[in-house]
């Protein structure tokens, strides 16, 4: 099999997500590249959860409509998804009676282990169905808790059914991580020392991942009382010399907005991860949107420079968060990594070579003597950064100030310090031009322009429809030079993004006429086919 999709569905609490992860681990060992889209409502028990797993020999990070294997933990799953099934149905025969391959997974789980192990039974049955060798199944199960019981359960389910195909090894396994894990690792490579967050989907798993890491590693993780405290505490930590990051979604970021402005005027480095979900307000908490772009570009009162990076998959989340951390310490301006639920919570076969792109830029600590000026005016507006505890007296402030950090209301000083901060823009833009931060896929006189998670489906759709795909990875500063180069020879432009108003399209309009907007805002990711149809229908 070249490229296939497995959908695993059930009630919340039945373990569809865990089953998906286990299947991913098995297929990963055959060298398949994995992408798992997680779909779940905002509740703890009940409802309908599913994981849509795409396995392909080449890295593909989008979802298609057609399902090749439907794994049903309950009847609901069959009702909701069998329409898209063109392949095998594997179902829980303890709960459902229909045509297809039935396995009594609850009976098997209870007989050899515990009731909760029904997903292990489903895994065993699926492995046999697609012809996975028992040894590989054993290897995956050996890393689970209670491996003996789980293996007994899996073996019984494995023995119950016939194989319909025979998987062949097509490569080596990759790391399997989520976008949130990837960006955390990228930040760690750039020296992340302190993480602050208040729980909010879809950013919460960054907090979980790093809190877990903290138990053994020298990384500090704090959950303050609210998002306002989060950003203020993080700025305090950064002032004290620790590379700090915060994570949230749109609603939490709204509370942090005054802190963005504070970071800017006090020139305190900070990385802010904003993982978008469907808004406005509480919106649709566990579903996706890309509708906070204009918000993060303008959040915070006053005039100031900022960095806004927009990764489109796990590797870019790793690389751009790493870069954001390095750049916020270099330029002492706030850096925002704007991602969305379908990157944050999706699982990816992570390309190990991305690790080579990770860097650690050491900040210059020259001039940390007794006459230290926190806001010394320099050629490029970047002042030496020192921390309290040494010879220098370090005075950060939210007020307009002189070079020492003392409050000022003198007109000439106000102008001087505003200009000092804006001066950074010259070398910042040069750096963005050097980095590019515009990706292109394919060549054509017709181009899709896209960003964030929509790039994953847009990339595959572009390939099928014969369109060039241009992906924007930085909106502030906007990589104007690289974008114009990418647009050379392009006569028709379609912007693909996950919001109602065409927020990126408005920005793209400044550089080129937008002929078509392909927008999706039902909380779900684009299917490749949807984009192709829209392109061809235009």
């Amino acid at each position, binding site marked *: 099999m070249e490229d296939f999709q497995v959908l695993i569905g059930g009630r919340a609490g039945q373990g569809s997500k865990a089953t998906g992860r286990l299947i991913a681990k098995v297929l*990963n060992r055959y060298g398949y590249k994995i992408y798992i889209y997680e779909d779940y409502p905002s509740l703890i028990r009940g409802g309908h959860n599913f994981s849509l797993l795409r396995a392909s020999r080449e890295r593909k990070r989008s979802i298609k409509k057609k399902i090749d294997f439907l794994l049903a933990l309950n009847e609901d799953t069959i009702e909701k998804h069998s329409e898209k099934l063109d392949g095998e149905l594997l179902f829980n025969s303890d709960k459902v009676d229909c045509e297809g391959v039935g396995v009594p997974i609850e009976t098997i789980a209870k007989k050899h282990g515990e009731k909760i192990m029904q997903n292990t039974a489903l895994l065993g049955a699926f492995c046999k169905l697609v012809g996975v060798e028992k040894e590989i199944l054993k290897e995956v199960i050996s890393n689970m808790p209670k491996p003996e019981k789980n293996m007994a359960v899996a073996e019984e389910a494995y023995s119950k059914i016939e194989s319909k195909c025979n998987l062949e090894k097509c490569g080596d*396994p*990759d*790391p*399997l*991580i989520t976008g949130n*894990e990837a960006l955390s*690792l990228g930040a*760690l*490579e750039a020296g992340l*020392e*302190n993480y602050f967050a208040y729980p909010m989907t879809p950013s919460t798993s960054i907090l979980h991942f790093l809190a877990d*890491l*903290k138990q*053994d*590693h*020298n*990384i*500090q*993780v*704090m959950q*303050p*009382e*609210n998002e*306002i*405290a989060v950003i*203020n*505490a*993080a*700025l*305090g*930590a*950064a*002032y*004290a*010399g*620790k590379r*700090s990051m915060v994570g949230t979604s749109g609603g939490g970021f709204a509370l942090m907005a*005054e*802190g963005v402005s*504070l970071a800017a005027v006090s020139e305190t480095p900070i990385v802010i991860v904003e993982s978008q979900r469907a808004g406005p307000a509480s919106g649709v908490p566990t579903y996706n949107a890309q509708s906070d772009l204009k918000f993060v570009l303008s959040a915070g009162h006053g005039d100031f420079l900022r960095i806004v990076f927009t990764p489109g998959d796990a590797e870019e989340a790793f690389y751009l968060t790493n870069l954001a951390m390095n750049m916020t310490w270099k330029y002492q301006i706030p850096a925002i990594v704007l991602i969305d639920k379908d990157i944050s919570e999706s699982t990816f076969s*992570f390309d*190990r070579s991305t*690790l080579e792109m*990770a860097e650690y830029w050491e900040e210059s600590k020259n001039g940390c003597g007794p006459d230290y000026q926190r806001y010394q005016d320099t050629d490029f507006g970047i002042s030496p950064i020192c*921390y*309290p*505890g*040494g010879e220098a*007296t*370090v*005075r*950060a*402030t*939210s*007020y307009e100030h002189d070079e*020492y*950090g*003392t*409050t000022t209301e003198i007109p000439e000083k106000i102008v001087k310090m505003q200009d000092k901060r804006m001066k950074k823009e010259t070398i910042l833009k040069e750096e963005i031009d050097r980095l590019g931060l515009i990706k292109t896929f394919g060549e054509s006189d017709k181009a899709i322009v896209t960003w964030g998670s929509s790039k994953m489906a847009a990339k595959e759709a572009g390939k099928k429809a014969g369109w060039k795909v241009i992906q924007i990875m930085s909106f502030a500063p906007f990589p104007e030079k690289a974008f114009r180069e990418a647009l050379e020879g392009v006569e028709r432009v379609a912007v693909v993004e996950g919001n109602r108003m065409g927020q990126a399209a408005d920005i793209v309009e400044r550089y080129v006429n937008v002929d078509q907007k392909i927008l999706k805002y039902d909380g779900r990711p684009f299917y490749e086919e949807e984009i192709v149809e829209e392109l061809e229908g235009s």
Partner: protein
Amino acid sequence: MKTPNTWCPGCGNFSIDMAAKNVIEKMDKSKVAITAGIGCHAKIIDYVNVNSFYGLHGRPVPVAVGIKLANPELDVLAFSGDGDSLNEGISHLIHAAKRNSDITVVLHQNRNFALTVKQFTASSPKGFISNSSPDGNPEEPLNALEVVHAAGAGFIARSFTGEMKHLEETLEEAVKHKGFSFVEVLQSCPAWQGNGEDYHEKTYKMRKLPRNPLKRMKEWNYDNGERIPLGVFKKEEKSTFEEEMKTGKKKVNVLEILNSSA
């Protein structure tokens, strides 16, 4: 560099400024970091030449918590006002006390928004005539000591700007206390309250720690009552937030983490 002082003549902030400077002088100055919010109190930042983070209104406490967590070697003092930490940022005050962050919060208690030219705050007396309450403050005042006591603060004290020696000694004791310390400093506001405060008349110094701190805190309800106790109400050491937040020692190895994820 000398910064011109802009507090009103007779403002209690002069006393707090002097007491704080005297206390800081006795410490290793390079290891001191102070924060402030926004309000008349916060101008102290410009007058004390020490490591400082002049933050936003209501937020001196979370900045201080972040600094202390990042570098527990520093002695961190957060200067705040009643508008700052009893109105805008009260959640931060409560949670910092609850988590026993090892910082000292000095609350400049002048019982009105002074820098924005006289409005009522959480601790203004009921009936207080101000620009936002021309018919008198409709709300009952909040007892700041009771709030931090309920949140579990280990060190709770009250002083008065008219008692310089007491103020300096109380601040010093607060800074030395291991764990969260809260010092409420009563001050009159010469600009907006005239000489309406009679703290000189009403305050008295407690000789020792009260056996029932809460009862003593309730002795004055910020409205009426004859006697206002000054001194340390509670002093109790327990493990600090920073001690509880110990991390592991291993250096993060990203490749190792990636490999174990497969």
